């Protein structure tokens, strides 16, 4: 851990330098164009200052995004439609609902696959095949169709999140529930354990490390699902809607701030699972 204390900030700092440099390069044509029409000659420092302060830059400088983030999170009321916290909340709610649904479905399928030979042989290949279908691509259809049968709001987005998040859970849990070796299973049998006892006292506990590893992936996938699910709803609310609205009106700063917010959300949620993982595994004596 300590070893990465120095290199990580260096790399991050380097990324910021590249970002600033790129925003000068990408925004320069517009700055030159404007200067030419105004009939003034731009010095280098003026050029840099201009490229870092444009209204609709091709690539906003980091501080512009930071200012926008500050304005839309701290300065605005949470209930306001222009508050990024409000939009994050909308996205977060469907992310979490989809995540919970996906986890329940995933664990259920995994238990079935481990305990039922027919399911193992018939469902598992389709679970894998289901992920080669780009569900994100049919997100608009799912939203429209569910809207037509009267289901709207949170649930359609959550279903897309669920579809993306159940897969890592199934794969991880199948591996985890099968992780106890012959010796341990035999031991349970010597103790005359019932099937239920074998599941609750051996298989489930030993699958926990696998479960948490997949939950982290599932959470990230679920957020992506929620964001894409918001695209076709006509840009009403949510981070996906902010992205779409921003791309319609060329509000690059708004896109970037929504993007950073989504990144922070993903990082926060994954870190939260990491904390739960550490506490749980510690109490179970596994970490």
């Amino acid at each position, binding site marked *: 851990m300590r070893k990465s204390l*120095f290199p990580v900030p260096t790399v991050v700092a380097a990324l910021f330098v590249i970002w600033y440099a790129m925003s000068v390069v990408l925004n320069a044509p517009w700055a030159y164009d404007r200067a030419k029409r105004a009939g003034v000659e731009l010095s280098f420092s003026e050029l840099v200052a201009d490229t870092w302060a444009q209204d609709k830059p091709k690539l906003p400088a980091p501080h512009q995004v930071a200012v926008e983030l500050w304005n839309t999170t701290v300065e605005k009321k949470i209930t306001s439609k222009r508050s990024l916290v409000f939009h994050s909340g909308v996205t977060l709610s469907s992310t979490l609902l989809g995540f919970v649904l996906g986890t329940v479905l995933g664990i259920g399928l995994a238990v079935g696959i481990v305990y039922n030979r027919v399911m193992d*042989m018939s469902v598992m290949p389709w679970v894998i*095949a289901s992920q080669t279908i780009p569900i994100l691509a049919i997100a608009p259809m799912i939203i429209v169709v569910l809207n037509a049968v009267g289901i709207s709001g949170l649930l359609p987005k959550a279903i897309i999140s669920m579809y993306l998040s159940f897969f890592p859970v199934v794969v991880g849990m199948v591996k985890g529930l099968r992780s106890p070796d012959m010796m341990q299973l035999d031991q349970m049998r010597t103790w005359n354990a019932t099937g239920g006892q074998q599941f609750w006292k051996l298989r489930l506990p030993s699958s926990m490390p696998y479960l948490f590893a997949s939950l982290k992936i599932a959470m990230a996938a679920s957020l992506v699902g929620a964001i894409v699910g918001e695209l076709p709803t006509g840009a009403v609310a949510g981070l996906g809607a902010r992205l779409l609205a921003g791309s319609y009106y060329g509000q690059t700063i708004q896109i970037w701030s929504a*993007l950073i917010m989504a990144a922070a959300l993903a990082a926060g949620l*994954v870190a939260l699972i990491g904390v739960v993982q550490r506490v749980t595994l510690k109490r179970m004596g596994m970490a």
Partner: protein
Amino acid sequence: MGWIIFGIVAWLAGWGLNVYLSRLPKSRATGLAVPVIFGVTLLLIWESIVRGFGISPVLLPAPSAIAARFAVSTGILWEDFVQTVLKGAFSGYVIGCGAAVVTAVIVDRFPFLRRGLLPVGNFVAALPIIGMAPILVMWFGFDWQSKAAVVVVMVFFPMLVNTVEGLQATDTMQRDLMRTYASNYWVTLRKLRLPAAMPFIFNGLKIATTLALIGAIVAEFFGSPIRGMGFRISTSVGQLAMDLVWAEIVVAAIAGSAVYGGVALLEKAMTFWHPSQRG
């Protein structure tokens, strides 16, 4: 009513057949037959539910209707396939995976970069990168170049993380052996470390195939010329032509599965020595 009974019969028959087959000794034939029967049964149930309950084709078209539409509009489907899969996804996939492998070798060469860039790469790989799509569409225009760019960004980090991990898969004993052979860095890389990294690289390639398709299609939602699978899906949803949407999904699923299967076969041929392939 007849259709509903047919659906129930198909369900029970498929289920019974699978229970019977799964009790037989495991072989290649049963391993293949069981999932196929499962799939066919699902299709039959779907068909009979749609017909039996008279579900409007606007909501959920029957599989037969989708197949009919597929047969009629192969021209459009092929045009979209070329635009999205061959031009957008494939070029992005090749560029992104190639760049990631090269970067991984560089990162591996310098421990400083590995300690600094890898945590950042891991972090970025978990982010909703698809959100970059509107920005990249703005930068690279509406045609396939912007879709390829989205795909590059999407596949780069998972691929990088996997390859870097793979390059460390050799143990000290093997590297020492190469040193006793007096082989230099490049020879060691080519003859020992890249082959040893292959299972990890293929893992990354597999993850990247699905990501590439998703990236190329979703990027088209943010602007595209008047062809492409993402464009067709979003406009057909607007026209309530659900059978065409489903036909596009079938194309995407076939393309996705075929590429995934191709990568898996290539993996089998190239990493035949790995324990996971010997089974």
